[in-house]
């Protein structure tokens, strides 16, 4: 038996090259887990079993013949069903896309294929990536492996589930307001959003082209680095080296970002900061002066961008959308041009403020999700003394870095008393993505 839920790409690669395991064996184990658990967790919209087996046999043949494609050779990866994989439908979890079939791979997918990755299936998501709970999907909700009555987060919820449940060694998601980091946090995985524009979004169904990012969810920071580099077209990256924790300078934006937190999420965050301080990390406070405007700015941009993309199908086939997603898209059609421009101005202001907060710091540090994974069907959750809308809570700590384009990574940092994962978010400077990952690797080693 292969312990897929804990097997990293790094470890699989070592064992593959030592001839202790084959690509065919790992694929069979992932497919077995899909057979057993997908009916209750609903992670996959499409399982590419035959194709994956063929790819695995070819990967084993290639390795035996001395052709090694790099760190992803023979690695089973699941793909959010928002990215084109040639010869398969890209449903975006919507009946609107019923007739679709991708003629070619998305650029990022083509890079993974070239790197030897094996595509095990297309994963469930919140319809058109327009939501954070994965509840509104033409294929039904994906469910959190830690508690199937709870949301896995979204929109890349099925992706996170497939990873945590051992159905793949890594998965590809998209992130427009937190859609990689939120499900990573809710399910207890590493979720990484690179700097805006680094990974191609060609062949990806857009939500907001101004805010969309493609990136990996993985079991470790090193695995996220390996997949991220492959997405860029680098199949054999150098090993990621951790920075020394002693001397690492971290800024914590407490105002707004730490004001509305579940008690246990707050406790895990503070314990994490204490552990890092004890290891020599310098932690001080910083601020984003216009943080209270993040949500209104984000809302006006994402609504208007999404409405423009969907305007034709909202007229021609409105009944094919799930009702909540259709209504939110319709709402976007009422955003005035002048308010869209105000929001873009606000976005520039926020970008300057995040840059300023990063000055003198190697990274910003904050929780990823202010609450543990919420129950499916909940519109609101109790946070401290107040009842808060789930949607606002899910996006509250992540959407800023889509507006500003800074790279951000979510890493697990303990659990609640109910066993639900908590998550730490690190944010780095534009185009300093490797530096952020090196810092995250050091923190992961300390708090893991």
């Amino acid at each position, binding site marked *: 038996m292969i312990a897929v839920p804990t097997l990293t790409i790094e470890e699989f690669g070592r064992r593959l090259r030592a001839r202790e395991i084959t690509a065919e064996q790992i694929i069979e184990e992932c497919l077995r887990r899909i057979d057993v658990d997908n009916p209750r967790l609903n992670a996959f919209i499409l399982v590419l079993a035959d194709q994956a087996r063929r790819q695995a046999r070819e990967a084993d043949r290639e390795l035996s013949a001395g052709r090694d494609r790099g760190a992803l050779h023979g690695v089973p990866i699941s793909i959010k069903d928002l990215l084109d994989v040639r010869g398969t439908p890209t449903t975006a979890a919507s009946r609107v896309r019923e007739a679709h079939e991708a003629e070619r791979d998305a650029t990022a997918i083509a890079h993974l294929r070239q790197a030897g990755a094996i595509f095990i299936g297309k994963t469930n998501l919140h319809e058109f990536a327009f939501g954070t709970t994965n509840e509104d999907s033409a294929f039904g909700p994906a469910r959190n492996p830690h508690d199937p009555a709870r949301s896995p987060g979204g929109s890349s919820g099925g992706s996170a589930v497939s990873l945590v449940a051992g159905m793949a060694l890594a998965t590809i998601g998209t992130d427009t307001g937190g859609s990689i980091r939120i499900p990573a946090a809710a399910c207890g995985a590493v979720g990484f959003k690179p700097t805006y524009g680094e990974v191609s979004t060609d062949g990806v169904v857009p939500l907001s082209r101004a805010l969309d990012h493609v990136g990996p969810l993985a079991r470790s920071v090193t695995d996220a680095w390996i997949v991220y580099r492959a997405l860029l077209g680098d199949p054999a990256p150098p090993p990621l080296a951790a920075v020394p924790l002693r001397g690492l300078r971290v800024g914590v934006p407490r105002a707004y970002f730490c004001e509305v937190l579940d008690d246990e999420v707050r406790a895990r965050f503070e314990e994490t900061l204490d552990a890092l301080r004890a290891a020599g990390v310098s932690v001080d406070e910083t601020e984003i002066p216009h943080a209270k405007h993040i949500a*209104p*700015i984000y809302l006006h941009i994402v609504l208007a961008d999404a409405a423009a993309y969907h305007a034709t199908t909202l007229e021609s086939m409105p009944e094919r959308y799930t009702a909540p997603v259709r*209504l939110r898209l319709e*709402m976007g059609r*009422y955003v005035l041009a002048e308010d869209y421009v105000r929001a873009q101005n606000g976005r520039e202001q926020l970008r300057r403020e995040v840059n300023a907060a990063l000055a003198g710091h190697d990274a910003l540090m904050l929780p990823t999700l202010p609450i543990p994974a919420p129950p499916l069907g909940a519109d609101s959750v109790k946070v401290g003394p107040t009842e808060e809308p789930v949607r606002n809570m899910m996006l509250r700590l992540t959407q800023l870095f889509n507006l500003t384009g800074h790279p951000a990574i979510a890493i697990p940092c303990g659990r609640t008393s109910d066993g639900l994962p908590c998550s730490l978010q690190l944010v780095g400077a534009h185009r300093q993505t490797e530096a952020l990952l090196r810092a995250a690797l050091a923190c992961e080693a300390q708090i893991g």
Partner: protein
Amino acid sequence: MTVDQWLQAAIADAERRGLPELKPILETLARATRALRAADFNDDASDGRRSAAVRSRS
């Protein structure tokens, strides 16, 4: 157009289009729009001498 005028027109249009269920989420958007317009990063053709409080009523 003030936010109140916009909201009234948007709700009327949604009802005309057979989407009365849009009303509560348009009201949510209106709250966000008021907050956005009240921000001090907005342009001001009078060269910034109007206060944020004045802008918040526009």
